[in-house]
C-alpha cells in the first residue's frame, strides 16, 4: 500500500487537508512509494542525459548501465536481491539534476543514485545528495569530487578525473611529439581544467605552452580561431565537447590539410563521431587520449571482449546493430565499473536497506585495489577513499589507417597527485 502521509494525523485533519489541496493530492504519483522490503529490488536512481548537450553520452551510458544490470542480475543480483534501474532525464541541466535526485530519494525510495557525466549537473546535484543522505555515485571525470568541493555522499569510484588524465599525458607529449604546445579548448570550466592542469604538468616536464586559444561555448564555427595558433607550434593540443565537435575537427582539417603541427587531442573532440566521416582523413597519424580504447586492440583482454559483447559494441566501437552509431567508449565503461563497485560495496557492508547507506559509503571508502577483471574491464584501478576518487591507466592511441591503435599506456602512478580533501573526516 502506498504511503500517503508522512506524519500521524487524525482522520478529520486528513479530510480537511485533502479538501484543501483538492485535485493536487489526487494526481497520480503525488504520494511517495512504500519502503522497500528486504526481498524487493535494490533501486538505483539513474540520472541520465537523455536531452541537452550530453544526449549522445546519455544514450550510451544508458545502454552500458542496462547491460551491467543484466549481468549482475543474471549472476544473482546483490545479496540475493535484483537491481532495478529508475531512470530520470536530467536534461544535462543542474536544476533538473537536483530534482531527479529528490525524486529518487523521496518518491522512489532509491537506495543510491548513480550516473551522469557533465560536471555542472554533478555539482548542482551533489548538495542535494548530501542533504538527502543519498549515496551519489558519479561517472563524470570532473575534478570536483577530489577537489573537496562536494560532500561525503558523493563518490567517483568508476572513472578517473580530468586532472589525473591530463597530467599523465604531459610526459608522452613532450617525449614523443614536441616541446612547444598550443592548446585549443572550450572556454568554460572543463576547458579551463585542461588548460590549467596540462600547462602545469607540461611545464614541469620542461615543455612550453606557447599559446592558449579558448573557444567560446556558443561558437558554431571555428575557422577564425585557427590563425591564432603560432606558426612555430610543434604540437596542437585540442579538446572540444558538444554538438559542434564534428564541425570543429573538419574545419581544423580544412585549415591545415596534410601540413601543420602534430596533433594531440582528447577523444572528447571526436567522441561518438564516426572516424570514417569524409573530411577527417587529416587526423591520420594524430594521437588521442582515450579513457578506454574505442577499437578492439591487438592485446585486447578477455574482460574487454566480455564487456564489449555485453554492451553490444563491435570491434570498431560502434553498435553491433548499426555501424554508424558510434559509442562513447572512452567514458561509458565508468557506468559498468561503478555498478560493480556498488555491488561489491553492498555485499561487503551487508547492505539491507536505506538505513545502511552510511555503511555502504564506508565500505566503498575502504576499497583500494581494483584489479583488471570483468568488473573492471578498462583496467586495474586504485581507489582513494579519502578523496572519493579512483585512479587508473590512461590510453594514448594513434590514428592509423582510419583506426585508433594503442601507442602508449600510462601507469596508474602517473596519474597520482596529492590529496586535496579527506571526506572520511566529514560526518554522515
Amino acid at each position, binding site marked *: 500500500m502506498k*504511503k500517503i*502521509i*508522512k*506524519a500521524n*494525523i487524525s482522520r478529520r*485533519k*486528513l479530510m*480537511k*487537508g*485533502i479538501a*484543501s*489541496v483538492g485535485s493536487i*493530492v489526487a*494526481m*497520480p*504519483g*503525488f*504520494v*511517495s512509494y512504500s519502503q522497500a522490503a528486504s526481498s524487493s529490488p535494490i533501486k538505483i536512481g539513474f540520472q541520465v542525459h*537523455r*536531452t541537452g548537450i550530453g544526449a549522445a553520452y546519455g544514450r550510451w551510458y544508458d545502454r552500458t548501465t542496462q547491460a551491467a544490470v543484466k549481468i549482475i542480475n543474471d549472476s544473482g543480483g546483490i545479496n540475493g536481491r535484483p537491481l532495478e534501474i529508475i531512470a*530520470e*532525464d536530467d536534461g544535462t*541541466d*543542474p*536544476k533538473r539534476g*537536483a*530534482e531527479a535526485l*529528490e*525524486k529518487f*530519494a*523521496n*518518491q522512489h525510495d532509491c537506495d543510491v543514485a548513480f550516473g551522469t557525466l557533465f*560536471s*555542472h549537473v554533478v*555539482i*548542482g546535484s*551533489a*548538495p*542535494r545528495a*548530501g*542533504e538527502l543522505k543519498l549515496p551519489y555515485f558519479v561517472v563524470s571525470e*570532473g575534478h*570536483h569530487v577530489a577537489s573537496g*568541493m*562536494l*560532500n561525503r555522499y558523493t563518490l567517483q569510484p568508476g572513472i578517473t578525473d580530468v586532472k589525473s588524465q591530463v597530467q599523465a599525458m604531459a610526459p608522452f607529449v613532450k617525449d614523443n611529439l614536441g616541446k612547444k604546445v598550443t592548446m585549443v579548448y572550450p*572556454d*568554460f*570550466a*572543463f576547458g*579551463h581544467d585542461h588548460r590549467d592542469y596540462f600547462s602545469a604538468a607540461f611545464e614541469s616536464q620542461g615543455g612550453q605552452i606557447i599559446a592558449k586559444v579558448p573557444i*567560446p*561555448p*556558443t561558437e558554431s564555427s571555428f575557422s577564425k580561431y585557427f590563425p591564432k595558433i603560432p606558426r612555430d607550434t610543434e604540437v596542437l593540443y585540442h579538446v572540444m565537447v558538444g554538438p559542434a565537435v564534428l564541425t570543429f575537427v573538419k574545419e581544423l582539417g580544412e585549415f591545415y590539410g596534410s601540413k601543420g603541427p602534430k596533433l594531440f587531442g582528447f577523444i572528447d573532440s571526436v567522441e561518438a563521431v564516426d572516424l570514417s566521416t569524409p573530411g577527417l582523413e587529416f587526423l591520420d597519424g594524430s594521437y588521442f587520449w582515450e579513457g578506454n580504447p574505442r577499437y578492439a586492440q591487438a592485446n585486447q583482454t578477455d574482460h574487454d571482449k566480455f564487456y564489449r559483447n555485453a554492451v553490444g559494441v563491435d570491434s570498431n566501437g560502434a553498435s553491433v546493430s548499426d555501424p554508424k552509431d558510434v559509442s562513447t567508449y572512452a567514458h561509458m565503461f565508468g557506468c559498468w565499473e561503478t555498478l560493480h563497485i556498488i555491488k561489491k560495496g553492498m555485499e561487503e557492508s551487508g547492505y539491507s536497506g536505506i538505513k545502511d547507506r552510511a555503511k555502504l559509503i564506508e565500505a566503498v571508502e575502504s576499497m583500494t585495489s581494483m584489479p583488471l577483471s570483468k568488473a573492471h574491464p578498462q583496467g586495474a584501478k586504485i581507489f582513494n577513499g579519502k578523496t572519493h576518487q579512483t585512479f587508473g591507466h590512461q590510453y594514448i592511441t594513434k590514428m592509423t589507417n582510419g583506426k585508433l591503435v594503442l601507442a602508449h599506456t600510462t601507469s596508474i602512478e602517473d596519474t597520482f597527485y596529492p590529496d586535496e580533501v579527506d571526506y572520511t573526516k566529514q560526518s554522515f
Partner: protein
Amino acid sequence: MRKDLILHLSALSVLLLLELLGIFSDYHQGNFARILVLAAYGVGYNILFGYTGLLSLGHALFFSAGLYASGLSVYHLDYDIGQSIILAIGISAFISSLIGFLALRTIGVSFMIVTLMFSQIAYLSILYFGSITRGDEGFVIQQSSRIFFSLDLSNPTIRYYSALLIFSLCIFINLWIAKSSFGRVLVAIRENSDRALMLGYNVQSYKLLSIIISGTISGFAGACYGILFGYVGASFATVSYSIFPLLWVLIGGAGTVLGPLVGAIFMFYLIDYASDITDAYMIIVGVSLLIVTLFARRGLLGELRYRFFKWIP
C-alpha cells in the same frame, strides 16, 4: 476585508497548512519549496510583462545577478546570509536600473532583442571570469554557510517555510502595486502608452521604475534560490531561464498576482509526470502548452478572471 486580500491570504494559508498538517510527502515538500522561489521570480517578471506590457527576454540576467551576488559573497568573502541577500538586492537594483536606462531607448521587438543581448553578455561574462565564478560548472554553497539566525536553511522544513515567506513577501509587494495608483498607471501604459503620455504621465519613468522593481524582485529570488538549494551555476543565466518566467506568467495568467505560481506549478508537474510516462516527455509538454494556449488564451487564472471573477488582481 477585501476579496482580493482574502483570496491571497487563503492561497498562502493553504500552502502553509499543507506543511503544518504534514500532507506533503518529502518529495512534494521539496518541489514546492523550489516552485515557490521560482514563482517569486515569476512575480518579478510579471510586474514588467503582465502589468507594464514590456516583454523582456533577458530576465535571467537579473535572476543570475542576485544568484551570483549572494553566492560569490558567501563563497569568496564569507558573508553571512543576511549580508549576502542585502548585497544581492542592491546589485540587482543597480543592474536593473542600468539595463532599464539603456533598454528603454527601444520598444517592442527591439526591447526584447536588447534585453536578450544584455542577458547573453552576462552569461558569457560568467564563463569568461571562470576563475572567480567557476564558469559553467558553478560552485556549491556549503551547508555550513547556509545558516540564518541559527536556522539551517538546508533543512527541508525550514527551507519550505523560508520559500513560502519569500513568495509571500513578493506577492504582497505585487498586490500592493496592483492596487496602488502606481500600478494603475503601469496598466494604463500596458493598455495604451500614448494615451498615458497624453494624460500627463511620464511613461519612461514609470517603465524604468517597473524594470527596477521587476529586476530587483527577480534578483532577490535568484539570491534566495542559491542559498536555499546550495548551488550557483551559469546555466541559470542562459536564455532558458528568461523563457521560463515568461511561460509561467503566460500559462498562469499575465497580470494576475497568483498567475506565476499557478504557471510554475503547472509547468513543474507537467514535466514531472510526463517524464514518468515517456522518455519523449517534451512532446507531451509541447502539446499540453498548445492546448492551454488555444483554450485559455489569457492563462489559467487570467481566463478565470475574464469569465467569472473580474475582481482578481
